[in-house]
């Protein structure tokens, strides 16, 4: 299936006006990382560097975004696969440059896509401490150890954008609860190794 529409490859040719290879590289990275909504402002920033009008810049930025995302989505890792995305009459050097840049960045981009996919709130940190309860209103002398566990949780990355919301949940665990929890976690570990060994 086609990565881009006809006109989009034509738009890519605007890159020929870019001042340097590094500028092209930079633009590729920004286009991949930007969400569709951020492409407009990105295009405007790119205008002066490319000596292109706003409309031309927008088409270029959108085409680059679609191309890079297509490659990452389909997990293309070989140069030949990327090269054959381009049409016959595409500028040779530009085609090679773009392929090279994409190949350099592909695994970083893949990780980025995985890190920003939707998920339940994620654990970012955990701390614990063990206290000994020595007395209370129901019994004046005792020596009961208990554990306080603090989990720092970050809300869905996609929702927060650049200002992640991190909340902390502090939980108290008695020894029995901890033992039960460890039993459960041990079962998870066993199942995980069973899956990994298949």
């Amino acid at each position, binding site marked *: 299936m086609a990565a881009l529409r006809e006109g989009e490859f034509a738009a890519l040719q605007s890159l020929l006006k870019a001042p340097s290879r590094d500028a092209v590289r930079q633009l590729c990275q920004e286009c991949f990382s930007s969400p569709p909504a951020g492409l407009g402002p990105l295009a405007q920033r790119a205008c002066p560097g490319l000596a292109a009008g706003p409309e031309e810049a927008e088409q270029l930025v959108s085409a680059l975004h679609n191309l890079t*995302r297509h490659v*990452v*989505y*389909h*997990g293309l890792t070989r140069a030949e696969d990327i090269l054959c995305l381009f049409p016959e009459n595409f500028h040779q050097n530009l085609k090679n440059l773009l392929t090279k840049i994409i190949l350099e960045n592909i695994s970083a981009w*893949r990780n980025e*896509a*995985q890190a*920003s*996919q*939707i*998920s*339940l*709130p*994620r*654990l970012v940190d*955990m701390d*614990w401490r*063990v206290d*000994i*309860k020595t007395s*209370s*209103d*129901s*019994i*004046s*002398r*005792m*020596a*009961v*150890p*208990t*554990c*306080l*566990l603090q*989990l720092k*949780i970050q809300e869905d990355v996609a929702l927060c954008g650049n200002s992640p919301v991190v909340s902390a*949940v*502090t*939980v*108290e*665990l*008695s*020894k029995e*609860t*901890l*033992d*039960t*929890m*460890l039993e*459960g*976690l*041990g079962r*998870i*570990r066993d*199942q*995980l190794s069973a*899956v990994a060994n298949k």
Partner: protein
Amino acid sequence: LPSQQFSALTEVLFRFLTEPKEVERFLTQLSDFATMNKISLGPLKNIVKSILLVPNGALKRNLSSEQVRADFIALGLSEEKASYFAEQWKVNSPTLTRLAVGQTLMINQLIDMEWKFGVTAGSSELEKVGSIFLQLKLVIKKGSQMENVYIELTLPQFYSFLHEMERVKTSLESFS
């Protein structure tokens, strides 16, 4: 009260103390006792209330059975009955202590943990993913309400969490 009935009453009392939730059963047994021994229920209840104060106070102050016996004698009970009660106290005190400790304040107590793990097959950004995710649901008691907390962990995070929890267990064990 003749000693046989006293021991029956003590038995009823201690059964209630060790299972404080069985209020109805306790009340039924009390009224059965009252009818069997031809005592009216009202005064019996009052006596029982005052008797119950002794073990509760004893728990709070960590009294030994000797001290409990002395307390009862001071309250006017015969030596024989006081000794009997103190004996019962010694037998039951581990259970009672455990119950009292269980009632001690706990902040945000973890009640339950559910989990599932699976493989992310694909996403809108990546056609084929194949990465493992682990999801935990923690049920926490906040005051009188339950709160559910959902967390997702990556595999390395899981292993490090497991490792930390094992360290906590070692620490707790060295203190008990």
